[in-house]
């Protein structure tokens, strides 16, 4: 307020008009932003639920994967399968691609998992001597877990982006609601007040002028009356006047 208090605009009808327009714009923007925020918030709440579900699923999937891995270890007759698998890993058969998704004007990245089975050929002969099928089963279990993780990743990213966006929008909404609009209103109030004041001043001034005029008028009148009175005193005595000429018919 202090800032606005420092440099008040000239209080006249034109500035009032411009401020009125600004207020209109601000309220419109405020309403729109509020709608956007609400939409984002609704989406956010839905996301939260999804994230919790997916997180549980990921936990479950990884647990199953670990169990399957233990089985694979058991089945592969004590060889160190982990290292030989890692040594064989060359090109990834799983890749993720990013697609944009739009929520209330905010673009949110969505990850999709792509599987290229041709890269898995190297793993096909894994454990032919013992445990090969168990290994493949383990891979399938982990594949499911990875799918969940990718899903979770896109949800989390969406969550993060939405969170930022909601924060920003909220800030804007609040700024509009609690700072900008009140300030404009205050200025408008000030202008109208000032203009009222001016009007009252003008009215008072006019009244004063009229009063002064009236007094002056009254004075003039009085003076005239006085003059009249003196004139009456100076009137010629009828007794002293000469005889009128005779009337000749």
């Amino acid at each position: 307020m202090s800032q606005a208090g420092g440099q008040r605009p000239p209080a006249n009808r034109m500035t009032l008009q411009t401020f009125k327009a600004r207020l209109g714009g601000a309220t419109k923007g405020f309403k729109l932003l509020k709608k956007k925020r609400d939409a984002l918030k609704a989406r956010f709440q839905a996301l939260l639920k999804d994230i919790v579900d997916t997180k549980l699923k990921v936990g479950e999937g990884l647990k199953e994967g670990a169990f399957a891995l233990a089985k694979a270890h058991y089945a592969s007759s004590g060889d160190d399968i982990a290292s030989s698998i890692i040594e064989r890993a060359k090109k990834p058969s799983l890749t993720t691609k990013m697609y944009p998704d739009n929520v209330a004007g905010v673009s949110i990245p969505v990850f999709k998992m792509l599987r290229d089975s041709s890269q898995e050929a190297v793993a096909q002969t894994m454990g032919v001597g013992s445990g090969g099928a168990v290994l493949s089963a383990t891979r399938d279990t982990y594949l499911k877990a990875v799918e969940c993780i990718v899903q979770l990743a896109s949800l989390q990213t969406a969550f993060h982006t939405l969170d930022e966006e909601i924060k920003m929008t909220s800030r804007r909404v609040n700024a509009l609601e609690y700072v900008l609009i009140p300030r404009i209103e205050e200025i408008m109030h000030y202008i109208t007040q000032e203009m009222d004041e001016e009007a009252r001043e003008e009215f008072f001034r006019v009244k004063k002028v009229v009063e002064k005029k009236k007094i002056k008028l009254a004075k003039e009148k009085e003076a005239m009356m006085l003059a009249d009175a003196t004139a009456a005193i100076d009137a010629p005595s009828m007794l002293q006047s000469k005889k009128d000429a005779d009337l000749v018919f």
Partner: protein
Amino acid sequence: MELAMFNVSHGFTESVVRGLRSGFLGPEDYRRLGSCDTLEDMRSALEETDYGTFLQDEPSPLLVSTISKKCYEKLADEFRYLKAQTVEPLSTFMDFIAREKMIDNVCMIIQGALNNKAPKELEEKVHPLGVFEGMKVIMSESFDVQGGFDDVYRIFLVDTPIGPYFEEYLREADRDKDDMARSGIETSQVGGILTKQDLEIMKTSLKKAWLEDFYGFVQSQGGTTAEVMGHVLKMEADFRVLLVTMNALNTSLSTESSLQDRNALYPNFGYLYPEGTKELRKVFNDTTVRAALEPYSKYLQLFDQVKDFYDSESGGRGAGFQSIEDLIYAENVHMYEMAFEQQYHFGLFYAWVKLREQEIRNIRWIANMVVLDKKDHIDDTIVPIFQPRM
């Protein structure tokens, strides 16, 4: 002759192994291990068994891999101790046992060399049972890939007992590349062969060669050894055929073009050989496997128990809980236990090592289940050794 002379040379070692037999975990130990809540609990539970304080110096937090590694090291220690007591031909026999693990190690080193792994890293993954002298040399020297293969190859060929298997394998692999291999193997080609071949297949065929060689050696011993070990190895050969067949199902190895590769992995002896193997050479899906196993009621029964797991139609793998490995482990344990029932033969040593391996697998499985908090699965998977019979 055997009855009279066996104990002169091998009596002591045999008695040591029979003594070690009582070191296997009993039902009480398994129960105690199963009721552990953390790996720390397992450490103290294992301290009361024959494993003793083998985990004492390991820093917390304990890892499952550390436990199994230490178990293997303990087994290797005992194995080396036993081997030091042996005289020929038992020493050679013990060598044969260790060779299986040597093959694992060598394959691991080759794989590591292909990926330019530091020798230090490789050293940590070495199976303690399969350590041999030449290995230290290749591990300690950091060889570059180009010149390195020649080194690797020469060391394998000359210095190690598994050299002949490599030679055989490489010659065979080279023969596939027809005209190049007219004059045997030239060292310069070895690098090329090693990089091109699928290491997993190479490992399996090396093991096949090992199994065949072992069988030949055992037969040459004659007597009870040939009888007991012959049976054990024949069963193992059959199981190997089964395993390879089952594990190749639903993979690229079951396609028309690579049946050749798969069939090369079948050993040339065993109860299934030659008729059963001949049938199995043609199979490509679970129905044909079943048909091929039809005359062998025992294997058919095994297959029927696990065929859900390998059924390609019921929504992929993993439909059934047990895999063929689980059943074969149980069969093997029974078979190895039986080897203890006879005296004056070498099968005992082999059986002992294999049973210990199974026990380590059991411990590892229990440790995994303790970590994952899925203890209901402990009892349905592990195969206790020398269970009291009702």
